[in-house]
């Protein structure tokens, strides 16, 4: 990985996260724990190939989210995000 064009958008997280969450969270706003930039998960830079994905902040390249779909379980590491805002109908 040269960090150049070896990534796709956070849209590519949608399938794996839809296995975990009942709503689409790629449109949810996440705040980067390192630089504070806030934007949709869809705007993160996703490296790797499903089932193991690493999503980095487009502003500072810190890891915001990791997800790994293993046999019988999904591992979701959100420690790089300080906050996640999901719009929901009332």
């Amino acid at each position, binding site marked *: 990985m040269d960090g150049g064009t070896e990534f*796709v*958008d956070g849209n590519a997280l*949608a399938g794996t996260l839809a296995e975990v969450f009942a709503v689409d969270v790629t449109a949810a706003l996440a705040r980067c724990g390192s630089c504070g930039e806030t934007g949709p998960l869809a705007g993160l830079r996703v490296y790797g190939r499903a089932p193991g994905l690493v999503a980095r902040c487009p502003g500072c390249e810190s890891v915001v989210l990791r997800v790994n779909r293993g046999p019988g379980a999904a591992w979701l590491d959100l420690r790089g995000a300080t906050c996640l805002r999901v719009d929901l109908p009332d």
Partner: protein
Amino acid sequence: MAGTAVPGRLTWRVATLVDAVEETPTARTLVLEVPGWPGHLAGQHVDVRLTAEDGYRAQRSYSLAAPAKGDLVRITVQELADGEVSPYLVRGLSIGDPVELRGPVGGWFVWRPTDPSPVLLVAGGSGVVPLVAMVRARREAGVRTPFRLVYSVRSPGDRLYADELNRPEPGLDISYVYTRTTPEGWPAPPHRIGVPDVNSGGWPAEFEPACFVCGPTGFVEKVADILVALGHDPRRVRTERFGG
């Protein structure tokens, strides 16, 4: 698995290839029957999973190319010569064969016919797939939202959906950028997309268009930068990088 899905939570389903269209010598549209398909928005995608006899699995995302017709959905796959999955989907899968799929997914890179903003679509290569899905959704909804499409391709023969896009359509303007070979008598030499192409083929930033950019990662980077430099609000520039 079929029938056991909990609503809201996504699971893999088995789709069947029922029809196929050769778009170019290296790209094919697959018409897949997915029992119980819930419908989708233009711009959403599916994940496709292949499993080898030894259990090895490979998974890739493919944009939905058109509004669903009942249980029938379309994806268009561009073959990468050294690719793991795309050559099989373009040349290996036969009518009647099953393939595992999950979706529709993605709620960000989507266009809704109720959005009145003018729309700018900028496509590089197979990145045109979800953007043509938006053109088709516009047509199907019968709305007059003005659309512009800037489509960058290597050569005239690489254009996907060429016949459909050649037909004049009120409110849809298309401009082409050729990167390797142009049609005969084309006014510009082959070149990579630049500011003048996006400027003349797009909308002025003051019109506040919804911009959708899709294609290889390097292409999307460049176009997104150009749009922002031309004054478009970064929040109105939605991107879908295909990799590469």
